[in-house]
């Protein structure tokens, strides 16, 4: 279980960082919008597990291969949501920033990212569940420890109890992170941004 989580953490961190950066880049740079965006949308249709053969060829039977699958599984949805978040920023806010002389790094860190944060959070949440699924699929298909392998083992030993227990564990981890971590963060952001009724 810890092995699964550490792979997930690595993969997720990489894809969150890259995904947000890619999303912002696509939203802000016109030629990326016309070239990379259709590509990202297209690749999103590819189930993440389809990256596994390629990952095995490139990285061999290693943790890297699984992390790669996790990254590819969540990166695209994070960047799509980020792009959406940036695109739906009130243009007046961007105009006002220009008029008030907010430029460069201060603009990106202080205006663009916070303004797009509701969209980014949605992306991170989506990305998290995609990453978790990709990880499980990857671990099921190739044996390298972790929850997925435990599940496979249960099947081979005809141990229904183990199979069900592992399934429950997977659901538990997924929903705890989703409900507790992301929910709290999302609610705080929405409240602060004035998007939800502050109760």
């Amino acid at each position, binding site marked *: 279980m810890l092995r699964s989580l550490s792979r997930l953490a690595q993969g997720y961190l990489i894809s969150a960082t890259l995904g947000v950066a890619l999303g912002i880049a696509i939203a802000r740079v016109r030629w990326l919008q016309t070239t990379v965006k259709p590509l990202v949308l297209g690749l999103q249709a590819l189930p993440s597990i389809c990256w596994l053969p390629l990952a095995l060829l490139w990285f061999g039977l290693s943790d890297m291969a699984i992390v790669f699958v996790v990254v590819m599984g969540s990166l695209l949805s994070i960047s799509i949501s980020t792009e959406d978040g940036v695109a739906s920023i009130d243009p*007046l806010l961007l105009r006002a920033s*220009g*008029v*008030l*002389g907010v430029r460069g790094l*201060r603009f990106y860190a*202080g205006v663009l990212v916070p303004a797009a944060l509701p969209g980014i959070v949605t992306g991170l949440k989506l990305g998290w569940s995609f990453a978790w699924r990709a990880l499980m699929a990857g671990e099921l298909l190739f044996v390298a420890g972790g929850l997925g392998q435990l599940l496979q083992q249960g099947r081979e030993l005809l141990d229904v109890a183990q199979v069900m227990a592992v399934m429950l564990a997977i659901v538990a981890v997924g929903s705890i992170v989703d409900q507790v971590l992301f929910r709290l963060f999302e609610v705080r952001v929405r409240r602060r941004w004035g998007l939800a009724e502050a109760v």
Partner: protein
Amino acid sequence: MLKRLRQRFSTRNMLVPSRARAGLAKLAVRRVGHTFANEVIALRNVDIDVHSGEFVCLLGPSGCGKSTLLYALAGLVKPSGGHISLDGRDVKGPGPDRILVFQSPALFPWLTVRQNLVFVLRAKGLGRLEAGLRAREFIHRVHLEPFENALPHQLSGGMSMRVALARALAMDPSVLLMDEPFGALDAQTRSHMHELLQSIWMRERKTVVFVTHDIREALVLGDRVVVMAGRPGRVLQDLEVRLPRPRDPDDEALVELSRRIRAMLARAERVSDTPPPIPASRETAHEEAAPGAGRIPGGTPPPMGADL
């Protein structure tokens, strides 16, 4: 009848065509024209001089190009013809020397009132301490101390606008541009904002260009009222308002002046609504307001009442 006549006589010197002044204009608009991509002529041959410390109101019906002109002054729109210069230098893009206050407050929703001010002041290059002090000072000026730590969505429309005003003033621009900033407020809040803006302006004497379609608002606030008409956007008359400050929107003289401007706008509309040929802007202005209208370079201007 007699009373009306006397009133008209007594107000005739309060609204006169403004004279071309000596000295370099702070903000000079020269033969500016702008045509949108859909071939609508937003502005044609607009000439306006704004002097240092003047409060100029651009007044006109919607679609007369007044906002386009303001955006061009801010550098957000590049006019397709003519020049705009500030202190002798051409305006090329937006800059912190010209702060534009929009129709809606455009505050950063995730920052508190104070952080909204501090953030833009820091972007201007002020230190943390200095920015904090300055933010506090300007929040005080718009009487919002109790809401210093509130978030924008917790404020009313009038309060948000006050924050936007404080934020713009704190940046200490050499020209403050305002695009119908009080248009979305209710009448009562709006008149409070007029009082506030007047008192701040009387103290600071900032150069202000203020766009509005509300005649009374223009007369309450402006030293000069530039009356514009649409299709194509042009200046009808450039008038100087000689009423003592602080002004009261219900003052009889002011009401009388607003009646006159309304009549002028109505006539302009009739002229431009008549089907072709559409007369060129210059001629319209002359035809319109017979003797003593238009800009008179130097000399004593005849009182504006003469043409009525």
